[in-house]
């Protein structure tokens, strides 16, 4: 469920025209870590855009998620240089350790996994990002150590 006040703060930044749809959804995604269904309905009404159009946009772009994302968003770079430097193995290693496929979130809500096309840090290939932290030249055996620093102590 969306906090009406926070949604209001987001809406107040915009004129309220159809072209504001994507920036509004981006702000909600940043704020809530996903796009809550009730928020989408409100946005459709306020921007005077059909709800189908809102869903069409929300599901077309990879930056949006209709399900809550994990506290830590793990991105494995699938750029060309990372591919040539063992990016596939790195991704498989991350999948094994997290126990989820790209696009999914761990049951404890700690991690979500995404494969990104290129983070532009090719000099450090293969690259793994957790939130806004980037890790370069990551070997399969280095993944556990990186993830451990983010995992909340039980």
């Amino acid at each position, binding site marked *: 469920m969306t906090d009406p006040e926070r949604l209001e703060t987001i809406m107040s930044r915009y004129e309220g025209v159809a*072209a504001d749809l994507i*920036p509004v959804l981006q702000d909600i995604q940043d704020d809530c870590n996903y796009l809550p269904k009730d928020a989408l309905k409100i946005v459709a009404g306020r921007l005077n855009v059909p709800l189908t159009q809102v869903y069409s946009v929300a599901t077309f772009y990879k930056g949006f998620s209709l399900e809550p994302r994990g506290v830590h968003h793990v991105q494995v770079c699938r750029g060309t*240089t990372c591919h040539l430097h063992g990016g596939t*193995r790195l991704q498989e*290693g991350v999948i094994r350790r997290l126990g989820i496929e790209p696009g999914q979130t761990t049951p404890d809500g700690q991690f979500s996994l995404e494969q990104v096309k290129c983070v532009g840090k090719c000099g450090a290939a293969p690259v793994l990002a957790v939130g806004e932290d980037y890790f370069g030249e990551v070997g*399969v*055996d280095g993944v556990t150590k990186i993830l451990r620093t983010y995992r909340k102590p039980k």
Partner: protein
Amino acid sequence: MSKIEFPLVTRNLGAIDPESLEAYAAVGGYASLKRALTEMTSEAVLEAVDKSGLRGRGGGGFPTGRKWRFCREAPGEQKFIICNGSEGDPGAFLDRAVMEGDPHAIVEGMALGAYAIGAGQGFIYVGHEYPLAATRLRQAITAAREQGFLGEKILGTPFSFDIQVRRGAGAYVCGEETALINFIQGNIGEPRNRPPYPPQKGLWGQPTIINNVETWANVPVIINKGAEWFAAIGTKDSKGTKVFSVAGRVKKPGIVEVPMGTPLRQVIFDLGGGIKKDREFKAVITSGPGGGVLPKQFLDIPVEFESFQAAGGNLGSGSMVVMDDGCCMVDVARYFLEFSHEESCGKCTPCREGTKQLLKILTEITKGNGTEEDLGLMEELCATMAAASLCGLGQSAVNPVLSTLKYFREEYEAHVREKKCPALVCRPLLKYTVDPETCTGCLACLRECQVGAITGDVEEPQEIDQELCVKCGMCHAVCKFDAVKVES
């Protein structure tokens, strides 16, 4: 090689504080805009860009001045300007460097363009992966507005122009100009048929010019130094410089700027430092999933639009990924098709289905299930896709396949005939064994193996059961002693 006087596009990278307008102004920033608005007519600005010979750096290489003139002369209530900072090609990071390192150069270039064609509003589209670039550009726009370089009546002249930044939402196809227009209008990023081209009918049906980051960053230089000065750099049909992000198997990955006409070899071997571990150069792919691979017989071609095209490559966006003899070209083609298939927007059938089928065939070949007929079938599919796809994504997605088939056919043949991967990359075609001499029995591989194919005691050589092995290669990846051997 002609000596370049100073870098043009990358002139301020790392040299000035990108968050300070004063720092940009101190190195001559906004002088071109001041001069244009006070001393030059809008026609004169357009004329300068036209005469400079500047061509679009986003991939197409269309003459910038000619594009601007179409837009200036097109009837419309309003005109728009867009900076395409999508930079979706994997391996490209030059535009990111300019957006993050010299955002005011883009703002100034766009203001000059807006003045030349009579636009009142501009948009900068920044790729989803580049949050810092979006922040820096927003800061630059705010600062420029405060100093009177953007907004109403710029520098006290009747010219008004402002810019908004739009952060991408994660769709490669939005780098295509008509898809980008749809994105800014709040729709899904599907391309549409052209013509009409954006300079006639673009954003909200109004005349619009779309140029990429590198193109815009060149504009203040042209106005500052003059069209003749700019046109003196480069070759007959490719003027100025080209920025590349050199990556892949090179010793010194990074961003380089060279005058057009510089031999490709110099970019890779001098500026890129040559091949890692001094292995053998195999090929370079420029322009990512829409580019072609250039094998070593093309190392001496000059960097320019025409010679790249003639060689089957594409100067394109400026990404340059270098491959050595440890890279499998079938795997590379499969990798790019996987990318294009995932990023295909699905609107037109040749691209949506074509990328799917090509990926399927290539995946089977890398698994050892390909046949010789597959190679011909792929060529046929590629021809249809190139001819019938709606936009550049589908039309050029075939280039990695066609160019690898052309220059590295023997590698495909090894996969389909002998079921071997000569570069030892395609894992289903490999055999992993443990060398008992080097194995220390650390058990790193045993712990990693998900199928229990590895057995052995601590500090004793391990053994891989070939029946159980699923060839995931993880044992090889985690072995610190290089004891897991690979053959095909």
